Every structure is written in C-alpha cells, then in structure tokens.
C-alpha cells in the first residue's frame, strides 16, 4: 500500500516538474505586481497631493501679487492726479485774477509747474463765460470759447473736474484738470492739460513679463491709455464694459463662453477703480505666463514621477527575481529533503514487507524441514531398497535440506534488515573499536593478499552510539571491501577516521582497491536484494541493513566509486544521537512485532 503511494507520488512529481516553471513565473509576476502596486499607488497619492496643494498655493500667491500690484498702482495714479489738482488750486487761490491774466505771468507759472517734470501740456485761465483769458502752451487756443464744452459745464457745477480722454479742438487725445474760483468779479477757471505721454508712462510703468499689460478705461469701457497689445487709446477696450461689474477684484478671463466671438488667450486679470475720475485700472497677464513657474515645477515633478516609476519598476523586477531565486533554492532544498524522506520511507516499507514475507515463509520452511527429516528417517529404515537408489534419494533429501537452510538464511537476513533491537547506547572510541574489527578480519584477508592500512585520527572524541549495531555495519562494509578484491592478486583496504567540530560528527572512510562499482549500479547499492555477487554468495541485504542502521543512529552513509580502481564508503556518525530520531524510525517496526 505504502509502496503504491510512493510510486503514485513519484509519477505526479514528474508531471509537477513542468508545472513548476509556470508556477515560478506566475509567482514572479505576482511579486512584481504587488511591489509595483505598493510603491506606485502611494507615489501617485503623494504626487497628486503635492501637485494640488502646490498649484493652489501658487495660484493664491500669484493672485495676491496681482491684487497688490493693482492696489499699489492705483495709489500712485490717484496720488499723481490729486497732486496736480492741488497744484492748480494753489495757483488759482493764491494769485489774483488780474495777476493770472497777464500772459507772462501764466507762462512763468506754467514753466515753474513743469520744472519737476513735464506734467502739463498747457495751462489756461478761463472766465466764467467760457472765454480764454490767458494761455500758456503749444496750441493756439486763446480765442476759443469753452462755454459749450462738457468739462466747462462740469467744472462750473462741481468746482473741480478731471475729464475723460478726449480730442477737443487740438484733435489729440488728452484729458484736463480744471478748478474754479468764485469771487466778486465772477468765476475764474484754471485749466491744465495733463501730458498724455507722461501720464501713459506713469500708468504703464508696471513690469509684468512679456504678456503683461496695464491700462485705464472709463465707465463706458473706452481706453484711457494705450495697452501694450489690446487696442489703442480712445478705442473700446477688448474686455466688454459689462465685465467691470464689481468695484475691484481678480479673475480669470477666457475667450468664448461669456465673450463669444472674441479670441484671446486665457488671462489673469486684476482691476480696481480710481477715486477721481472713476476710471478702472486693469492689470492682466496671460495665464500661462503668470503661472510659468508653477507649470515649470509641475513639469519637473512629472519628470521626477516618471523617473521614479522607471526606478521602481526596475527595482521591483530585480527584487522579484531575487526573491524567486531564493524561493527556488528553498524549494530545491525541500525537494531534496523530501526525496531523502521518500527514500527512507521506501526502505522502511520494504523492510516491513520483507519482515512480513520472511515471517510467513519461516513457518512452512520449518514444517518442510521436519517433513524432510521424517522422509530421511523412513528411508534409513527401509532395508529392502537397492543401495544405489537409497544413496540417490538420501542425496536428494540432503540437497533439499541444504536449500531449505539457504532459504532460512535469506529470511533470517531479511528479518535482520528490518528488525528492531533495543539499542544499548554507550560511549564508543571508534579508533579502538575499528582496530578490533580489523584484527578480526585480518586473518581471512591475509590469505588472499589484502593488506589493511589504518589512518586513524588521534584524539578523536568519543561518540555515543550502539556498538553492536556499529559492529554489524563495519563488519559488513569491510567484508564487502575484501570481497571486492575477488580475482585480484593483492589489494589494500584503507580505514581512516577524522572529525569535524562544525558538522558535529565523526567521519569514517573505508577505501578499497577492489573492482569498483559500475556507475549505473551506484544508485542501487543501498536497495534491498541488490547484489552483484554470484548466486548464493550474497543476499543483497548487507548494505541496505547497514544503511538503515546508520540512519537509525542519526548518521549518514555515502559512496564514491570508480570501476576497476576501487570504492570509498564514507560514514558520518554524530557525537550524540539526536533526540527522538531512533524512536521515529523504529516505531512502525515495533508495532508490527
């Protein structure tokens, strides 16, 4: 039953060999996938988190920067316009109208005003009916009457007025600041034109990269300065007026959708209102440029991510390969152990089987032997038989008896192979032990010219083992070594001992110069009933008994042989038999008996 199981397991093992490679390759890809998943998912999560946080952070910072810029710039423009208004007020209210009406006086004042910078294009004093009383500037406007001009009506109404850009009599875009004074002689208006170029440079003096632009527009969406790209002064602003529905703010402007038909890149826009006049200050820049640094950082992160991916893939491939190789090694080791275990159990089951057979055969053999004896006795009693026939019959009966005894010998050996003898463990000095055995064998071997050579390691430690079993093994091994010299005129058997503190065992080697073992037989020599000796000379049980004894003593036995040159058996015996080793090996046999 057990043998059948072993055979079946052997067959399945062969078919498993092919599956194994597939199994390893599947395992390999599983490892790769798991390590990739374990590394890439966190990497993506971290990358995504950092990207989101960083982008949001950068956008807010950029928007705040835009807001600061637009606020700061508004203050500068407001300040400029206020200062110019105060200049005019100061002149008008500290000088008498008679003084201001003098051409040279107004020119003197005009020149003085422009000492710090060419703020003004011209300066004029206008009476309450719209007449020009005095004028300093490049244009010939002295005869003009402004009674119908919008700005004139506004200044008469409010006292101070800053106009939108207009072309007026001179046909050049400009805007004016006008202040009014009222006294007993009537209303006087001091009017100055702000230098458009100066004002524009003041407004547009904000560095916003390549695509950034700054401009002013009035409530109707008419440009008050010339933007760098989108339009010209006095034109309608590209951005429709309705865009400016809030006091101030920041936003992202995209073509299409809200502004159908328009075509401009995505832009970041910040805007705010001036105090007086109610102009809107707009700063805008292409979104892509504004967030160039963020994009750059994102691209770098993306490259880093890809590099990480490649690195992770390579590492996981290598580590998976390494792990699979390690697993393979362990599997091979386990397989080897398994094979040894199967070998051992095979021998054990063979032992059981042979013991059963031997036992069952012994009883009939005993009966046959007695029957044979009865016939012999009867033959002796027969007196009337021919002497020749009697001798013949007697010879036959003797032959039967000797064959029965041969069978008996076989069954006895079979039983020895598998029997369990209560071990008597004691300390054994292998050197003296071996010397005794050699002495025992020397008498027989001298006759056939075989010398013994001892190469025994001095100081060899004592081992704890069963001397009677060891004697059986060594006698058998040396007997085999002697028998191996059959047909050779002389020979030598070398017996050596050595010990190794690392492997915790003693090694005994028995080396002969005999006929050697054919390579094809080398694997079978420990199997029961395997023999190369002639029929009747060997039962083929000696080595298998030796093998099972050495194994039961916790040792190991190995063989090396070269056909025609000789054989070496190496036996390793532990200093001490491992706990429980013997019990395991013999428990099955014990139950049988």
């Amino acid at each position, binding site marked *: 039953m057990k043998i059948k199981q072993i055979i079946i397991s052997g067959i399945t093992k062969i078919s498993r060999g092919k599956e194994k490679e597939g199994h390893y390759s599947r395992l390999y890809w599983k490892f790769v996938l798991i390590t990739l998943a374990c590394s890439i998912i966190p990497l993506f999560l971290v990358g995504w988190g950092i990207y989101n946080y960083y982008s949001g952070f950068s956008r807010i910072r950029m928007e705040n920067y835009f807001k600061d810029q637009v606020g700061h710039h508004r203050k500068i423009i407001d300040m400029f316009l206020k200062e110019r208004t105060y200049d005019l007020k100061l002149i008008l209210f500290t000088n008498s109208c008679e003084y201001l009406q003098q051409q040279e006086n107004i020119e003197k004042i005009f020149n003085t005003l422009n000492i710090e910078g060419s703020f003004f294009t011209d300066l004029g004093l206008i009476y309450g009916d719209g007449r020009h009383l005095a004028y300093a500037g490049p244009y010939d406007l002295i005869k003009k009457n402004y009674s119908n001009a919008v700005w004139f009506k506004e200044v008469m109404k409010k006292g101070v007025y800053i106009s939108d850009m207009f072309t007026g009599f001179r046909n050049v875009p400009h805007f004016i600041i006008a202040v009014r004074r009222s006294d007993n002689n009537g209303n006087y208006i001091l009017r100055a034109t702000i230098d458009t170029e100066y004002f524009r440079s003041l407004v547009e003096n904000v560095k916003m990269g390549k695509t950034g632009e700054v401009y002013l527009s009035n409530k109707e969406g008419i440009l008050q300065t010339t933007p760098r790209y989108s339009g010209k002064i006095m034109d309608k602003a590209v951005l429709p007026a309705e865009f400016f529905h809030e006091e101030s703010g920041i936003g992202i402007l995209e073509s299409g959708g809200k502004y159908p038909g328009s075509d401009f890149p995505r832009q970041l826009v910040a805007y705010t209102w001036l105090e007086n006049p109610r102009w809107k200050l707009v700063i805008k820049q292409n979104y892509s440029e504004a967030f160039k640094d963020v994009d750059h950082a994102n691209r770098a992160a993306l490259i880093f991510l890809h590099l990480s991916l490649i690195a992770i893939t390579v590492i996981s491939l290598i580590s998976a390969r390494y792990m699979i190789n390690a697993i393979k090694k362990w599997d091979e080791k386990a397989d080897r152990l398994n094979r040894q275990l199967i070998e051992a159990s095979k021998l054990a089951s063979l032992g059981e089987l042979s*013991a059963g057979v*031997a*036992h069952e055969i*012994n*009883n009939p*053999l*005993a*009966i*046959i*032997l*007695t*029957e044979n*004896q*009865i016939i012999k*006795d009867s033959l002796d009693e027969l007196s009337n038989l021919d002497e020749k026939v009697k001798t013949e019959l007697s010879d036959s009966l003797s032959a039967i*008896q000797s064959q*029965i*005894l041969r069978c*008996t010998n076989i*069954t*006895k050996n*079979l*039983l*020895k192979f598998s*029997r*369990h*003898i*209560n071990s008597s463990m004691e300390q054994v000095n292998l050197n003296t032990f071996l010397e005794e055995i050699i002495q025992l064998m020397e008498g027989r071997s001298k006759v056939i010219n075989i010398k013994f050579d001892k190469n025994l390691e001095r100081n060899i430690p004592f081992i704890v083992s069963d001397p009677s079993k060891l004697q059986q093994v060594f006698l058998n091994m040396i007997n085999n070594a002697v028998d191996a010299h059959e047909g050779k005129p002389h020979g030598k058997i070398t017996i050596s001992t050595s010990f190794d503190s690392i492997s915790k065992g003693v090694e005994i080697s028995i080396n002969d110069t005999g006929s050697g073992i054919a390579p094809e037989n080398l694997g079978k020599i420990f199997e029961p009933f395997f023999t190369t000796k002639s029929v009747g000379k060997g039962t083929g049980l000696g080595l298998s008994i030796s093998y099972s004894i050495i194994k039961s003593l916790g040792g190991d036995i190995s063989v090396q042989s070269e056909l025609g040159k000789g054989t070496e058996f190496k036996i390793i015996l532990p200093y001490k038999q491992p706990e429980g080793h013997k019990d395991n090996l013999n428990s099955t046999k014990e139950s049988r*008996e």
Partner: protein
Amino acid sequence: MSEPKILIVDDEKAFANNIVKLLTKRGYEATAVYDGASAVCIVDEKVFDVIILDIKMPGMDGIATLKEIKKKGIKSEIVILTGHGSIETGTEGIRLGAFDFVMKPITIDDLLDKIYQAYRRRIIEQGRTGYIPPQKKRTCT
C-alpha cells in the same frame, strides 16, 4: 534412566506433530499441544523434562504461557522457539526462566542438541534439589 519426556507447544499443528514423530523415533516420549492454555493445563497432568515453547501463538502467547508455567512452580526446562529473527523475545524468555531459545526453522539435529543440553541440566537440577513433581490427575480439553 527413563526416556526424556518432551512437550511441544506450537500452533502450527503440522510442525508440532512432525517434531513429535521425529523425537519419538529417537527414543523420546514426546507430546504435542497446540496452544498455550492446553500447555498450562497439561503440565499439571504430566511431568515433562523439556518443554519446547513457540513464542508466537494466537490467544495465550509463548511468553504468557512461560509465565504461567513458572508460576505453577513447574521445574521443567523450557526451550523457547522463535519464529522471527529477533533475539529479544528469546532473551526475554531467558530472563523469565527459560533454558535457552532456538530459531525456526531448525534441523532436528540442532533441536536435539538443545534438548539434550536442557535435559542434562534438568537431571542435574533434579539430583540437586530432589524435586518431586506433583501428581494431580486432571483432564485437559
């Protein structure tokens, strides 16, 4: 000296009967029983010089039979017959008071040697102790 009285105890009837035949032919008074219980019973009935006792028997085995016989104070020499190659049951028998053990299969000459040795010891022991065997009459089944 009267002829030695031998008892064969073996469940293998053919073997036991053959041994009886062979021993009878050689001048012994041999009896065969085929199980331990019969052996324990017959030793009360009859005095034997040597008992040849098989170890492996169904029911009461050789060792148990040996113990029972010894318990009764029977002084017959007992030779253990072991059917399997292990010597420890044989030595166990010796420890329990058997004379020696032999292994099956055995030639009649070897068996006779062993019986002779046992018988000699029996004679010596008998002479020394002046042992008188019990003479209870009983029928064994």
